[in-house]
């Protein structure tokens, strides 16, 4: 499908919040999941060749990260039609966007695409997911912004898909899942970042998935709780890779957003990176400044699942350890998943009001240019 540019409305009275006096603070939710009720939702956007393939073969994955989820999406978020929670824009609007005063939601559809082994199928499905997002989410709901779904292990096809979607104007980032075949800074992925920069998009690393390797640096754990605890370790490896490989020197306008990894680990990662660099910088002579400076310019973190220290003062200290980088913290709900955070009450009380406004709204508005 050819993508045509989105024309923002100039009529204020037609905007979703016109005439509503918000009782809750405005929220830009940086992790909203639009869900397929089944793969058949994509059939209108796929050619006969691929619907036939899905009917007769299905999708193959490397199967290295099979940790069945604790439970599916929140039952209360299921639409009256009985379809999956998160699969209908109208119900999501009523159930979530309006009551929570969400002015924009960044959609991250978690589909079979990014770990598909058949790359032709992956590219076709990626395009179908993106077309489905335009037709069934972005068109009916002006609060929505989208992530481009791609097959990162086929960077040439991914870059073409990013450029195709870039013409729309409502895609704000490209979606990687957390555990890739190679760390995100590796050269193979650079055509993707080149396309991001060209189209004004950023790149997001969302928790989970797996691409053939064990999901830890020490083998396959046994239980879902380990799968669910370990995403921060993967995203730290991806941030490290992007910084150390020099991605941000080559693409200075690119920003990397960590999604659904929590965020409390970031200061300690910066300390460790700086110590490692001061010890081993001869190995990476292209990296000519402290890694923490690169992180501070280019890396953003979403809160969910937010860390909850037992003492509130530990949370306040954590925010102090972020320092100026607190302007890179973004609220995220993970709606409609079972483990989501309620975006307007999840931050502990006692935080500076301006800081809270930034996390809930201003930081994301500045990052995504909303």
């Amino acid at each position: 499908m050819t993508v045509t540019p989105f024309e923002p409305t100039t009529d204020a009275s037609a905007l979703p919040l016109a005439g509503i006096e918000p009782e809750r603070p405005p929220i830009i939710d940086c992790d909203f999941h639009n869900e397929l009720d089944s793969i058949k939702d994509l059939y209108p956007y796929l050619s006969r060749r691929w619907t036939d393939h899905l009917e007769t073969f299905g999708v193959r994955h490397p199967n290295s990260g099979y940790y069945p989820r604790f439970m599916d999406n929140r039952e209360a978020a299921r639409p009256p039609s009985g379809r999956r929670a998160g699969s209908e824009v109208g119900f999501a609007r009523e159930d979530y966007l309006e009551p929570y005063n969400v002015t924009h939601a960044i959609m991250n559809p978690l589909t079979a695409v990014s770990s598909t082994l058949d790359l032709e199928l992956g590219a076709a499905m990626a395009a179908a997911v993106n077309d489905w997002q335009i037709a069934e989410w972005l068109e009916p709901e002006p609060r929505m912004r989208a992530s481009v779904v791609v097959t990162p292990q086929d960077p040439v096809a991914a870059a073409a898909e990013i450029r195709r979607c870039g013409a729309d104007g409502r895609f704000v980032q490209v979606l990687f899942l957390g555990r890739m075949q190679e760390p995100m800074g590796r050269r193979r992925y650079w055509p993707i970042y080149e396309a991001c920069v060209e189209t004004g998009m950023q790149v997001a690393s969302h928790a989970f998935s797996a691409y053939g390797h064990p999901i830890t640096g020490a083998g396959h754990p046994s239980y879902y709780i380990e799968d669910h605890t370990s995403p921060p370790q993967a995203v730290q490896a991806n941030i490290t890779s992007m910084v150390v490989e020099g991605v941000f020197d080559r693409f200075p306008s690119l920003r990397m957003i960590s999604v659904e990894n929590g965020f409390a680990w970031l200061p300690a990662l910066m300390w460790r990176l700086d110590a490692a660099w001061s010890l081993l910088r001869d190995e990476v002579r292209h990296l000519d400044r402290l890694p923490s400076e690169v992180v501070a310019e280019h890396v953003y973190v979403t809160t969910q699942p937010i860390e909850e220290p037992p003492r509130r003062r530990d949370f306040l200290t954590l925010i102090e350890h972020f320092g100026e980088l607190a302007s890179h913290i973004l609220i995220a709900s993970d709606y409609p998943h079972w483990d989501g955070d309620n975006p307007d009450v999840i931050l502990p009380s006692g935080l500076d009001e301006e800081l809270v406004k930034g996390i809930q709204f201003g930081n994301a508005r500045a990052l995504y240019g909303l």
Partner: protein
Amino acid sequence: MIDADVHIPNPRLRELLPFLSEHWIEHFSNTLDKGASQQYYPPRSPVTGRGGGLGDLREAVFDRGGAEVAVASCLYAVDSIHNPDAAIALATATNDWQSREWLEREPRLRGSVVVPIQLPAAASEEVERHADRPGFVQVLIPVRTEHPLGSRHYHPLWKTIEQSGLVAAIHFGGAPVMPPTPTGWPSFFLEEYTAMAQVFATQLTSMIVEGVFDACPDLRVVFLESGFTWIPAHLWRMDKEWRNLRRLVPWVRRPPSDYFREHVRVGIQPLDAPPVPAQLLEVVEQLGSDDLLLFASDYPHVHACDAGERLLPLLPATLQRKIRDENARSLYRLPEGGVP
């Protein structure tokens, strides 16, 4: 003062020959097998220890460093050897060599049993063989293993270590065949080095939620060369996960941070410190117990800064004393006062 982490250099193969059987002497003499030739560090990098002899160690750790006792480990990578018979033979020889050439010659030095961790049953036998041997106080386990350390593969080994009374020392490094990150092989050692803290984090998760400490309530673990400033954030995350998902692992009856504080101790090297000293104090305080940290020089490895010099002067005298001496004395059950 007790130094909880110093290193005996890897033995050269010919140094191990006196401790090997005829079969292995013949094998190593007539094949291209050079033993555990892999290293956990790039061969010539600044972090790689330059092997000195016992005299150098004595001078640096005891004379200049002021240690009363030092706990030493030899990072000979028997876990990198696929041939199980060779891995077992070399682990055994390394331990006999350590005992003869280092521990018996320097009573202030305590040793670590090298085990083929890829073969947990053989590792258990090696632990049993050395449990009562003078000088050995712990079992050395590289943090990067083929299976997470909480896995059932290792439960009999944990039971053996618990019953032996030895400490389980989980140390930087390891040579399983898989990538060191969940997202594939990084290009640079700097990345692998940085990621090692994340491997410690997943091992901590694994040991707690897979029930190692429920099965082995007397097990004592020490993390060496792990850094510690990443730990508070990981404890917060683990406790949140446990609140949500504990019904999937019903044997875990307390928040994971409780298990950590009860069973695990951590060396202070490398420091990975925040830029502001006050923030470093806040992180130490967030660990939630004064019993956790152990002074460790990591001799002869080089680090970004001297952790002892940078951290200890910031701390109150009682905590300094615990880190320098009392915490290690309690972990290793060293007698009060004049050791040995």
